[in-house]
């Protein structure tokens, strides 16, 4: 049967091309793989190979013709022995590509809030729960130990996590309890061991990958984003990477530009990741346990300065904190201060100073940056009509920018002042003590921002 040969698309963007040259002439026998013609695309001159065998019956588009549309017939192939007149009878081809289906007109985010904020105000633990004092460091270790006891597929790997007992002593004692099979010292090879962890998660394990600091995770960010975050989607839900990437993030003290960056906003941008940035020891413990159990890749951003701070932690078995539920540290009616991680410390200090001047601030700790508890923020802003965000990261494309946009979209009529984003300064972190102090966000800057939005 005669078949028409159609003008091929030879690049992802080609719509038409020039039939530069025929390398076969009418009557020639053609085998699969033979070069039929040279075709100029929008990018290059390409050789066009025959797929089927037969005889080139008729050339419909002469060489040198430009503007030949993709899928226009350019020649007719005949079976061996078939008459050339069959060429004329070959049917006109149907257009192969259908018009693209309409897509939902409005882009929406997977965790877009409903119109009326409905904050979850349930307590994190029941009233009367016995409490114990713990540092963030101890809370993180206990969370890992408890989850490793609970699920034998959970293991910890990273630099100095085992024999050295952790560069920041977060994994102290874990090697003794769980052995070298489950607490694994890696060579200094972030890209490699992050990717190896992703493969282990694909293979059914629940890795905890510790980065000595998240600054070093930039070497591994391709594996975190392209492999861990996107595979569930790209596989149509067949397989994903249930794992935790954790370690200290942001500035410590006097370690300079390459060891002092806050990555919260970077990771929070990625669909497929969950992002946690705890402040207190109770949250560090409850959220890390949730992260280890979560069936998705979780970025768990700790803070070195907070490691040694003590907080009250509920002394109950199997204590977890859900993702996407903010915590209100301080009630107030005059302004909403939204923060997370060490920013909460600055916000609370600022709130104390403001109270002395008669300004009552409500301090919200987001705890997780993906998912975000928009409802708690919006409900508070609708009450106070003013908002200041506080974070350590850089100002451009910050989390504060995003929160401001959401507040503007959803609570514009409630605002009595523009939202102010307090952030780290737009400079690489300097080493000199006085300059470092200037680069970082301070409680006094938060106080100043609050006074601006309250017109004091």
């Amino acid at each position: 049967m005669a078949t028409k040969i159609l003008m091929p698309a030879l690049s992802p963007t080609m719509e038409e091309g020039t039939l530069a040259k025929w390398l076969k002439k009418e009557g020639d026998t053609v085998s699969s793989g033979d070069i039929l013609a040279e075709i100029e695309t929008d990018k290059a001159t390409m050789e066009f190979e025959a797929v089927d065998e037969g005889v080139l019956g008729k050339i419909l588009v002469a060489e040198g013709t430009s503007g030949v549309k993709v899928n226009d017939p350019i020649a007719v192939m005949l079976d061996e022995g078939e008459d050339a007149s069959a060429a004329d009878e070959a049917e006109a081809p149907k257009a192969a590509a259908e018009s693209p289906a309409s897509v939902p007109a409005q882009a929406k985010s997977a965790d877009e809030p409903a119109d009326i904020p409905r904050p979850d105000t349930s307590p994190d633990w029941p009233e009367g729960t016995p409490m114990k004092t713990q540092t963030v460091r101890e809370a993180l270790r206990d969370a890992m130990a408890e989850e490793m006891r609970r699920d034998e597929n959970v293991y910890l790997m990273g630099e100095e996590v085992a024999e050295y007992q952790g560069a920041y002593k977060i994994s102290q004692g874990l090697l003794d309890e769980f052995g070298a099979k489950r607490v694994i010292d890696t060579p200094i090879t972030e890209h490699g061991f992050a990717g190896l962890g992703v493969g282990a998660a694909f293979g059914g394990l629940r890795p905890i990958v510790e980065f000595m600091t998240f600054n070093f995770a930039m070497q591994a960010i391709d594996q975190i984003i392209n492999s861990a975050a996107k595979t569930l989607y790209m596989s149509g839900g067949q397989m994903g990477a249930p794992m935790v990437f954790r370690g200290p993030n942001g500035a410590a003290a006097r370690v300079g530009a390459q060891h002092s960056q806050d990555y919260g906003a970077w990771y929070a941008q990625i669909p497929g990741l969950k992002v946690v940035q705890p402040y207190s020891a109770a949250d560090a413990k409850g959220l890390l346990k949730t992260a280890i159990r979560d069936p998705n890749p979780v970025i768990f951003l700790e803070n070195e300065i907070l490691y040694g701070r003590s907080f009250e932690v509920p002394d109950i078995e199997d204590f977890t904190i859900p993702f996407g539920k903010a915590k209100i540290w301080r009630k107030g009616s005059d302004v909403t201060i939204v923060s997370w991680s060490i920013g909460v410390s600055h916000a609370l200090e600022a709130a104390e100073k403001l109270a002395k001047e008669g300004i009552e601030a409500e301090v919200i700790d987001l705890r997780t940056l993906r998912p975000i508890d928009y409802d708690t923020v919006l409900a508070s802003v609708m009450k106070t009509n003013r908002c200041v965000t506080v974070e350590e990261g850089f100002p451009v494309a910050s989390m504060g920018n995003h929160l401001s946009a959401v507040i503007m979209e959803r609570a514009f009529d409630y605002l009595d002042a523009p939202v102010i984003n307090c952030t780290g300064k737009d400079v690489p972190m300097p080493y000199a003590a006085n300059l470092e102090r200037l680069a970082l966000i301070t409680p006094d800057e938060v106080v100043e921002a609050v006074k601006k939005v309250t017109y004091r």
Partner: protein
Amino acid sequence: MAARKGSASSAKAGANVSAEELTQYYRDMLLIRRFEEKAGQLYGMGLIGGFCHLYIGQEAVVVGLEAAAKEGDKRVTSYRDHGHMLACGMDPKGVMAELTGREDGYSKGKGGSMHMFSKEKHFYGGHGIVGAQVPIGAGLAFSDKYKGNDNVTFTYFGDGAANQGQVAETYNMAQLWDLPVVFVIENNQYAMGTSVQRATKSPDFYERGIAYGISGEEVDGMDVLAVKAAGEKAVAHCRAGKGPYILEIKTYRYRGHSMSDPAKYRTREEVQKIREERDAIEHVRQLLLTGKHATEDDLKAIDKEIKGIVNDSAEFAKESPEPALEELWTDIYADVAPQNA
């Protein structure tokens, strides 16, 4: 540890191979070639979009290595992945429907040519970033060692990826922890348009493991029996708990790097010569005929059967609907842990 040039086992292996096995390899390689030719045709018709990297010419690599695998073994590769999927038993219909971006594709149309997976067949992608699959493959092997079974992971990558830093990182860890992973370097001599000679002064990739203590050898990738023999040796090494093994398989791709590659970095004569003198399918075809294992008519019948399978897959891929619009918002997060293993 040793690095050996060339494979001594090819001719000997050929002597012992059964008619059934030879016929199976012929069939499996032909399926890949016909499937890829059809994919190229559908691309030309605009039914397949974006990037599409064909495996034509390299068929003996995956078919030979799959012949050395057992149930439970895993495989992972980069974006030139159609052949790997067909060789491990994935359904041509589901693969082709993914190429056309339809709901019956392996990833519901959301992955495309470069990003496809099958939990059932232990095929872990289909990865779009050159070299990223290498530590992932070592991680899959890590999971099997952790669980204490004797499964092996075949981690495929090209001569281009072999120069990526994470490959060196992975060699180091795989040998350090004795991971059961076969690193398969499919050396088709061109990393897109850059020949091996223009990319490295250390072109013998099978030797690259020496610094880490990993044995390796060079294999004729146009001889499916040589590939199988080398695969069996590598797999035995891994299953015995001796750690990773490197196979550098010398192969050749007949088509451009992707569909939009004019291939000006090599001559038409170079391609034609290998097609005529070294073709892996023709090699097995001659073994079948000269060994009187099959007649011309037998092989014609196989050709026809394969053509039918491929045409059915193309029809299926055209008929399958585009994914429902709601699919935009699914599979971003798992509600329950995926049962990966």
